[in-house]
């Protein structure tokens, strides 16, 4: 409720300021104009959002699955971890988005290339986060399970994986953003559908209001994606866990 009031207050201030100061619609349209435009082309925006979200979510799910599987492997094979993990961590500093053009060349203009880019951007953080989480188990708790006769897989399932969940979800929340960025930017490199395309077309035709429609749609979709994962996190990690957000 409080948040709703905040949002309405911001929108009102925006509306009033733009009108009072006589700001041109080309620079910053009032929210009412964006709303009107959205009402006129709901189908266009919906279709575009649907396309982009599908690529982002598919890439994201693949990233989560591959990232977790890879992390389990890395956490259990010290040699792999020592040789691969530093490379992964370092690669997070590289703007991998620069490779997008290559991905379009390889995977074409369709959804596959967007899924690949979304996957690529999300799976590094998921892998690194999960490895950290899998290694965060209390060594004494591991020892305790061993005295009960537990082997590697039992320890993974009963102790390491639940311990890793909070770490995993920090990465998964970051992943929603990176996957969406991947899908949108992927469209800029080559596609004729999606929110990225809608924004690019609006830019070329200097249709500022339509541009803002695209931005609003991206924001809503991104927030919703994040909210779904955060809700899942609250359901699965309900016990008091160490605070991991920086």
């Amino acid at each position, binding site marked *: 409720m409080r948040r709703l009031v905040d949002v309405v207050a911001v929108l009102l201030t925006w509306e009033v300021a733009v009108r009072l100061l006589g700001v041109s619609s080309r620079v910053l349209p009032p929210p009412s104009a964006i709303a009107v435009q959205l009402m006129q082309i709901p189908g266009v925006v919906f279709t575009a959002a649907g396309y982009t979200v599908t690529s982002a979510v598919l890439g994201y799910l693949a990233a989560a699955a591959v990232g977790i599987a890879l992390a389990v492997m890395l956490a259990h094979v010290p040699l792999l971890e020592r040789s691969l993990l530093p490379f992964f961590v370092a690669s997070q500093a590289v703007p991998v988005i620069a490779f997008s053009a290559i991905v379009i060349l390889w995977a074409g203009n369709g959804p596959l290339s967007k899924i690949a880019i979304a996957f690529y951007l999300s799976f590094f953080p998921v892998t690194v986060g999960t490895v950290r989480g899998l290694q965060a188990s*209390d060594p*004494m*708790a591991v*020892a*305790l*399970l*061993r*005295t*009960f*006769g*537990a082997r590697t897989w*039992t320890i993974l399932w*009963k*102790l390491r994986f*639940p311990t890793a969940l909070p770490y995993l979800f920090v990465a998964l929340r970051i992943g929603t953003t990176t996957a969406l960025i991947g899908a949108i930017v992927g469209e800029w490199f080559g596609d004729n559908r999606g929110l990225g395309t809608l924004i690019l077309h609006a830019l070329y035709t200097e249709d500022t209001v339509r541009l803002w429609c695209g931005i609003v749609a991206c924001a809503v979709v991104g927030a919703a994606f994040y909210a779904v994962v955060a809700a899942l996190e609250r359901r699965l990690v309900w*016990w*008091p*866990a160490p605070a991991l957000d920086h």
Partner: protein
Amino acid sequence: MNPDKLTLERIAKTFAIEGRHLPVLRPLDLRVPEGEFLTVVGPSGCGKSTLFNIIAGLLPPDPGGVLRIDGRPVDSPLGRVAYMPQRDLLLPWRSVLDNAILGLEVQGVPRDEARRRARETMPQFGLAGFEDFYPFALSGGMRQRVALLRTFLFEADIMLLDEPFGALDALTRSILQEWLAGIAVRYRRTILFITHDVEEAIFLGDRLLVLTARPASLKLELKVPLPRPRRPELVTSEPFVALKRQVLEAIREESLRSFSTQATVEPG
């Protein structure tokens, strides 16, 4: 005399730290008859926990040492000894009931059966009605009892308790000591119990070992001929105080010795 449950023959441990050899445990021979409550005291850092880690199977002893359970040598005691470390190590995502059955689950007992057994035993551990609570809602004393129940339910004839009451306040501690003494009499498990609290060691034990400062060896072995059940007021009785004086003296000598040799490498 009952047959020996646990036998240690020349069990020793030397750690290699940065190329230097650090003997932690001198070759130790020990026989623990079935059903005995054996308490082990020694100055801090003397290697008590190393001894327990070896008996639990977490650390291999130096070559030449033999560990026997029921007279038969065992390669690895993993899965055969119920070990309770100092901290309760309850899993925050498991309820009290499910924490208690962790060992049984690993042993392969079906979950329903394990839960049934845990439910039956809960009242003796003062946990009736707390089955569905989660660890973060429990007091320290209660968490420790859940950990004890987990250790107890695990199907092993030998229980290793490493300072289970070390982190508790004095009052909770004394209540739990009396309770554990009762449990031990009732179920006749073979129990090895580490503590640095001399009073606790005498109050609980049938027999008491004092270890020397590192490298640990046997400093003093003492029968505790006090009748059971033991009540808290026992600690002020004449025979109890006499035993305590004897043990304190032995342990004080060793503490002073370990204090003056602290400069050696600390164990990891």
